[in-house]
């Protein structure tokens, strides 16, 4: 029989990507989202005895994550630069409507799509995400203007989104 820690680890592991995506949508910043995810994990573990087995673990986690997000925003004291609570609620609801399987399938498709990118584009993605540089840092590193980097990132992300959709629909047909 799995220990409580193992049980929690399994549930958390299955939902954490969806949760992270939801937090990115709420905070529009992956570092902030990561911090909140970390605190949410702590809170969830502390209160794990309150979770009713068999009920929706993601929904339970999402409620905690929203609570932690609001705390984080207030702590940062930049609340005007974040969405209002009604919008947060909407984003939480939408994330609850997704499935971990669909998120996982998209992640798998993304890995494949990234390999199809042109070298220069992959390099840009590498700077932005692997090295965690912002658009400003990426522009500096690549000796390009920030606007140009933002445009390129937008274009690449659009390509990746189309590629993911195509890959998933092909899998469905197959």
């Amino acid at each position: 029989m799995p220990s409580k820690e193992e049980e929690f680890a399994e549930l958390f592991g299955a939902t954490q990507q969806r949760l992270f995506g939801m937090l990115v949508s709420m905070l529009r910043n992956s570092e902030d989202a990561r911090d909140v995810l970390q605190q949410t994990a702590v809170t969830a573990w502390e209160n794990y005895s309150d979770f009713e087995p068999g009920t929706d673990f993601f929904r339970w986690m999402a409620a905690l994550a929203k609570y932690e997000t609001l705390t984080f925003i207030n702590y940062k004291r930049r609340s005007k630069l974040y969405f209002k609570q009604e919008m947060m609620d909407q984003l939480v609801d939408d994330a609850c409507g997704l499935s971990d399987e669909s998120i996982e399938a998209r992640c798998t498709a993304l890995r494949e799509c990234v390999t199809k990118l042109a070298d220069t584009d992959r390099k840009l993605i590498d700077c932005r995400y692997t090295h965690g540089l912002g658009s400003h840092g990426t522009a500096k590193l690549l000796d390009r203007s920030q606007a140009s980097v933002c445009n390129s990132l937008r274009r690449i992300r659009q390509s990746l989104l189309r590629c993911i959709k195509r890959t998933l629909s092909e899998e469905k047909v197959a």
Partner: protein
Amino acid sequence: MSKHNGHPHLPLDLQKLIQRSFDEPLDEVEVRQLEHAIANDVRAREMYEEVAHLHAALVSQEQTSEFCRKVVQRELQSSPEVAVAPGQDEPSTVLYWDGFLNTARVFPLRAAAVLLALGVGLGCGVGILAAVIVHGPPQFLSIPWEWSVPEEVVARIESTQGVKWQVAENPETPPTRGLRVGQEIRIEEGLLQVTYRSGVSVILQGPAVYVIRSEGGGKLFSGRLTAVVPSASPVFCTETPAGVLKTGPGHFGVDVENSASNRQVAVHVFEGHLYEMPSAQFVRTSGGGIKLVAGDSIRLDQDQSVTSIDVPHRKDYPIRMPTAHRELYQEQTIFLGNLFDDCQSQSLTEAMLSDTYQAAAETIDLGVAAVHDGGLDLDVCLAEDGVLFNFSNVGGGGSAVVGLPSNDTYRSNLGIPIRTTGEDLPYSTNADHSLVLGKPSKIEEGVGLSSNELLTFDLDEIRRAGALTGRAMRFVSDRAGINDRELPVETSRTKALANLIVVVSNEERVLSAYLNGQPVDVAKQAAVYSVRVDEERASSGLRYDGHFVEIDVPIPAEARFLTLVSASLGADVHDHVVFSGARLEIEPEASIAR
């Protein structure tokens, strides 16, 4: 790959904004623009969420695998525990606490690495979990702030239980529940919980005197407090006459005896969550720090000598306040004055059962958001998180009358009962012809205010106490005006004059306003509201002539605040305003749908 735009139905500017929102900070206008778009256009929200999840996936798969590998490699080459200097590159998913004395960040990497190594195979999210399990779950959660108030408000009165202020005959309520640096709290008895923006909770036990000193601490001059410092909070400082207690995350107790004959401070560390480090440090006024860990309890005597003492029982230093009692309020009427002897944790049903004559309206009472005695010649906040209003054009004056708005009487410290039906206040005369008032007691139900007083009710708090969320109501007063004479003094008859203003508002705007029972327009200039009336109407006011007005104000479900104001119109005597029968009538639920 195709160059076709994936979201052709959306304006290109919006698409760019959505994409850019994940690459660089937006300004406030852009945030609101984005929010409006994704709130009102499902397709825009779909695109926004699609990009957010793509962004998250790119961060996760590219960064975490790399990060996990680096952390595990570093751990395998390092000693069992490694201190990482601030600023050094370190994994962000390993839990650390960087507050205490700004010392090094410490985390037990070896144990974490085992789980991290396991986590690599599981998608690395377990790395976060690793930190949780390695360190054990912190027990102290941050209390969310969720309150849009000015920056200078560093703390607030979160809840109370049986509180009495120290000066009984003249209640010393803060004007709102927001607390600023320098603000004093003096309680004679009961429990009062202060929470800071950082999520730190301080529970004072009366008698106690506590002063807010900064956003990260306060000074306990006398009495007892419990401090609960959450995991992510910076160092919290509790000053005492003997020195300063600096605490990391945990549960702490402080007692200060500060009398002429004895000056003693005791500090207790019930629990602390600083791994491998002291949980707290007490810095004496005479110099020298004392490091404390969980289970330590010390006493500092007048000569600053330190004695280790037994740890007291935790229950004497409560971590949280008694849980609020909530039940559906079954009645249709809420008498507002009846709330003045109740605390926020009580249900509306309980609140209506207790009706203490002469109870003062204080911001620790159920549903009372703001109380101002005087100062109505300035822009005044209807509530800490409410809008600004200026009452000077309808007679709001600066002078204060000692005594707060109160239940069934017009001044909390005199106890002259509300009378609007012509009944004289019983009195007799002494041999020297001085007047002796009859025993004051309740004659009518209602709320009384003296000159230039403002009283705001938090309707949402009242609704919550009665499980009435989203319910529309009406504010009704059967007879509002100048109270019947307290003594047969001629000046009462000739000079008493006041305007009664009722304002319904929420955090962002005024929804309606009434002057002496009649609806009036409001004007807004530079974020400050005022009543828009002509000079004649603004200055006519109500007089002591037996004439009262009936007030019936609709309160929609979105209304958060109800404000009652008495403006003196320059008169300086006997303008005792009463709202006889002041109550909320709960609208039937069907009217919400309509």
